[in-house]
């Protein structure tokens, strides 16, 4: 029988939540790496028991952990993320040049075909790659050559938070950076291009044709239609039907189009999920009501999903990497909050229940569907 494993990174450790395919009863293990920030944990699609975790601390820096048994035991891997060549400068908040400086790994994206190959998105924004299972990391330097001198940090730091691999086009990959924008490579990282045509950020970027500088919070796609992308920008929910060559807004009837995560239903490529947040200065749900919004039309027409979610006095946030879907039928949807709750739905979002209520603030949620 199928089962699911939810990997939860929090501000004070990692947690592994497991259930059978019914997803009604859960076992919780953790905290793993207690006291450390676990920015992200993700398993290899090739070998689901191979899991990579980003363990960080303001005191002791970056540690990379790897499990070979589904998160039961862990081994320390390489943590040397050294920028290639001359480090160079990006722009700081005040517009002055600032040398790149490694701070932490925000996101691991394991290869779709090789369990030892993993991409890492880091702060200050750059893309790294390992081909030996995490022992050694090399920068993919061409990304920072794509107008990197003009990139500036967002409020959360200049982080490369989204890495998407295209199973149908093996050389194609997407990355997104706050607040530099979104980028695509078609030649396995040798060259990159900004993919921002159609994005509008008039309060941050007065130039309507600016290629970099958009504060992209998250991008998602369905693997069966990799040319269709959905983006939660700082403000605006956007859609592209041509692999990012152009974007158009699909915020439609959302109560607010500010937010962080966005994800796509496992079996319905036009069904997408967002969690509207009141504004860029008030990072909590409008009216104190925690509502996931679902569109079954690829955007523009949205319905609020509220059953089982708090509908009063709720002032948590849901961070960009803290939503995921499983592959079961019906599709399971999961998200974690800064208040430490992890909510799950085993019916595509129609109803929700808390899997755990009192974890440290949740930084990331990933789901593995196991045979």
């Amino acid at each position, binding site marked *: 029988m199928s089962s699911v494993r939810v990997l939860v990174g929090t501000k004070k450790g990692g947690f592994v939540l497991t259930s059978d395919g019914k997803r009604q009863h859960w076992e919780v293990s953790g905290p793993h790496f207690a*006291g*450390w920030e676990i920015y992200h944990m993700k398993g290899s699609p090739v070998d689901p028991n191979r899991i990579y975790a980003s363990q960080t*601390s*303001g*005191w*002791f*820096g*970056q*540690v990379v952990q790897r499990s070979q048994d589904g998160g039961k035991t862990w081994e*320390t891997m390489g*943590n*040397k993320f*050294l920028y290639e060549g001359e480090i160079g400068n990006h722009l700081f908040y005040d517009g002055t040049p600032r040398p790149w400086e490694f701070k932490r790994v925000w996101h691991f994206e394991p290869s779709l075909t090789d369990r030892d190959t993993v991409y890492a998105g880091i702060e200050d924004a750059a893309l790294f790659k390992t081909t030996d299972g995490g022992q050694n990391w090399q920068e993919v330097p061409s990304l920072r050559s794509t107008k990197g001198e003009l990139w500036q940090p967002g409020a959360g730091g200049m982080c490369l938070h989204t890495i998407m691999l295209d199973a149908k086009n093996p050389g194609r990959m997407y990355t997104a950076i706050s607040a530099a924008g979104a980028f695509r490579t078609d030649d396995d990282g040798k060259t990159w291009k900004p993919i921002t045509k159609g994005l509008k950020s008039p309060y941050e970027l007065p130039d309507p044709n600016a290629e970099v500088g958009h504060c992209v919070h998250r991008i998602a796609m369905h693997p069966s239609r990799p040319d269709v992308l959905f983006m939660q920008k700082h403000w605006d929910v956007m859609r592209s039907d041509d692999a990012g060559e152009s974007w158009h807004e699909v915020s439609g009837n959302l109560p607010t189009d500010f937010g962080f995560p966005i994800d796509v239903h496992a079996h319905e490529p036009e069904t997408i999920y967002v969690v509207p947040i009141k504004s860029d200065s008030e990072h909590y749900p409008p009216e104190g009501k925690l509502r996931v919004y679902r569109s079954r039309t690829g955007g523009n027409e949205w319905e609020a999903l509220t059953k089982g979610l708090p509908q009063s006095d709720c002032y948590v946030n849901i961070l960009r990497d803290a939503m995921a879907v499983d592959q079961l039928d019906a599709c399971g949807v999961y998200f974690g909050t800064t208040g430490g709750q992890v909510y799950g739905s085993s019916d595509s979002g129609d109803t929700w229940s808390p899997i755990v209520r009192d974890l440290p603030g949740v930084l990331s949620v990933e789901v593995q569907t196991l045979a």
Partner: protein
Amino acid sequence: MIRVVLPVHLRTLAKVSGEIRLDIAQPVTQRSVLDALESRYPMLEGTIRDHRTKKRRAFVRFFACQEDLSNASPDDPLPEAIVNGTEPYLIVGAMAGG
């Protein structure tokens, strides 16, 4: 024999429970202690000093014989009480936060 005390999170990372004892050739300096420590416990590389510059991480402190040596030259000889093992060399996570 040099005795080194790690903060709890680095003891966990290095999978050690108590003091670490290192044999280090003279002259014993902070650099030679940290080099030997990282050589035996490579998982500690980058957690105490920057990989590239070997500078102390901002919120790590080095104490010895009731003195704060955090900003001393890494190549200065350490006190005799550290060198002969009478006193431990302390690596400390600085108090920070709110």
